[in-house]
């Protein structure tokens, strides 16, 4: 029994890596623009479908889809930015509905192109078992966990060291002061959307490589990403990783101990729990009360 639990913890941990990438994309845009991109999950899914097409259409390993996914998803993300920036008033609420609408467009677009069937990778290389001590996983899970760690480290470096990164942080903490310092908020907002796109692209290929996808899954991903940002609280990258792992573990445990049908409930339950008990998230600094 305890091996099952440990195995669940391990799987959850690996899953957490990709979840973290999605959540970070959401958090980045929110930090730069105070906008929650409800279409973030669909962007991830788009990348996953591109990986599918690369695999089934060209017979290549999904990893090779990453360059294409990067271009497509980042372009799409930039388009989302441009549309969002056209909102004239009440950006917080209107952007919610707007990105929701974009999510609907993307979901149905994917439905049209790729049909409603559930897809997953048929690459044996990806699915091959990878044993680490007593723990089993697919090679793809471990691979992409490593990838996400690298990406997160890169993101952390970028946010703290590069000029763009610091500009993003400046804009998110004080827009007007940032403008006075010569930072163009519009530019940093666009950059944040594109970086979110990069994260989404990797997460999507990862998702396809070890999970199953269907057009409706985009919305589910957005919700999971949102739950993680709530768990993590505002303004903390390590917090997002830990929150993501928590979610992954909670889901894995639910599947192992209860049933896979209740998997989604795990996230929801966690979400509500944190909301009522620790409204600032596990690591959050600012409050979120209305």
């Amino acid at each position, binding site marked *: 029994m305890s091996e099952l639990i440990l195995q669940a913890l391990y799987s959850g941990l690996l899953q957490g890596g990709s979840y973290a990438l999605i959540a970070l994309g959401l958090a980045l845009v929110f930090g730069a623009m105070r906008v929650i991109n409800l279409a973030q999950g669909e962007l991830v899914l788009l990348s996953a479908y591109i990986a599918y097409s690369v695999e089934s259409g060209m017979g290549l390993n999904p990893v090779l889809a990453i360059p294409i996914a990067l271009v497509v998803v980042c372009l799409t993300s930039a388009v989302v930015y441009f549309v969002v920036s056209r909102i004239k008033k009440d950006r917080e609420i*209107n952007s919610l509905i707007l990105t929701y609408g974009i999510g609907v467009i993307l979901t149905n677009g994917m439905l049209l192109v790729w049909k*409603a069937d559930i897809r997953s990778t048929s690459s044996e290389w990806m699915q091959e078992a990878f044993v680490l001590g007593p723990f089993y996983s697919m090679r793809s899970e471990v691979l992409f966990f490593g990838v996400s760690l690298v990406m997160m480290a890169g993101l952390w470096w970028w946010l703290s060291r590069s000029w763009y990164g610091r500009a993003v942080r400046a804009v998110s903490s004080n827009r007007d002061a940032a403008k006075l310092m010569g930072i163009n908020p519009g530019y940093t907002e666009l950059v944040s959307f594109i970086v979110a796109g990069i994260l989404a692209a990797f997460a999507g290929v990862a998702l396809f490589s070890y999970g199953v996808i269907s057009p409706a899954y985009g919305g589910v991903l957005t919700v999971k990403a949102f739950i993680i940002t709530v768990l993590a609280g505002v303004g903390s990258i390590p917090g997002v990783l830990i929150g993501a792992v928590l979610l992954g573990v909670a889901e894995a445990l639910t599947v192992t101990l209860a049933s896979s049908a209740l998997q989604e409930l795990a996230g929801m339950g966690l979400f509500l729990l944190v909301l009522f008990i620790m409204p600032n998230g596990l690591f959050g600094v600012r409050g979120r009360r209305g």
Partner: protein
Amino acid sequence: MQTTKNTTKNTTMSKTSLLALLALCVGGPLLFAQDHYVMSLLVASMVIGGIALSWALLGNLGGMISFGHAAFFGVGAYTSAVLSMKFGVPVLAALLLGGVGALVAALAMLPVLRLRGPYFALAILAYAHIFRILATEWTSMTGGSGGLSSIPPLPTLPGLDLSSKIGAYFVILFIVLVFAVIYARLRESHYGLALRAMHESEDATRVVGVNSVVLKGMMLLLSAFMCGVVGAFNAHYISFLEPDYAFSALWVTIPIVAAIFGGYRSISGPVVGAVVVYLLDQLVFKNIIPSGHQLVLGVLLVAMIVFSPDGLLPLLRKLFKGKFTRSKHAAT
């Protein structure tokens, strides 16, 4: 001298156009009473209208955007169906109890009221998912994923068979009208004034004695009740219910598009918008893109938010009248 209540003047219709609308709602369908297809479209669009109205009420008065009204719709549907099937409650009473069921579900959501915009919207979505899963797993009560079939239809009253298409239409029309009246009275009342003021600055209203938390809570409960009754109606009209249908995202997306299209700041807007959008979707979009026709709805939504967040119909109305009232739009 500026008129009083300028903003409500922008959004309430003149008496004549209101009567005209009413006449259309009643008279029009009588023309089509024999055409089953058209009637079922009209009934469905009124259902959407009901949800849109309850959604707009929560947005306007409660100041909260919700992406989870499917929760209320589904809970109302299941409550009513189960009560009438397993406990023999007469259908019309079950409709009301369906609303009560949704209201009870909303009670569980009260704690998330203190969250700001996006957090609230998604918290409600989380609840919607939870209820859907509950409906799927609680097989003994809800029939599980197979759902419930042969749900008792609306009764036959002397003179009118409510389970007929035209009968059902008048039931849902009646429901929507009652809700619209409640909404209107509320908006004009002191509570309505206080609620509208709360959007700007909740603290400023609390400092003059408004218990903003309770008021917002009541709006959530009311919106839930309304949506629940509509869901209950739909269950008895369709006679069949299953979790993916009852809690489908369609009951979220289409009402939102409808409400925004018709102008969600007004009372008639969401309902008119629902009829227009739904008919467009079923008669036009579905024929162009059979399996992804919601895509056009998404495009419509995006276009509206960018170009005319207060709704397309109000924009058209303004253009028609040829005069542009000074743009003193109340803050959304």
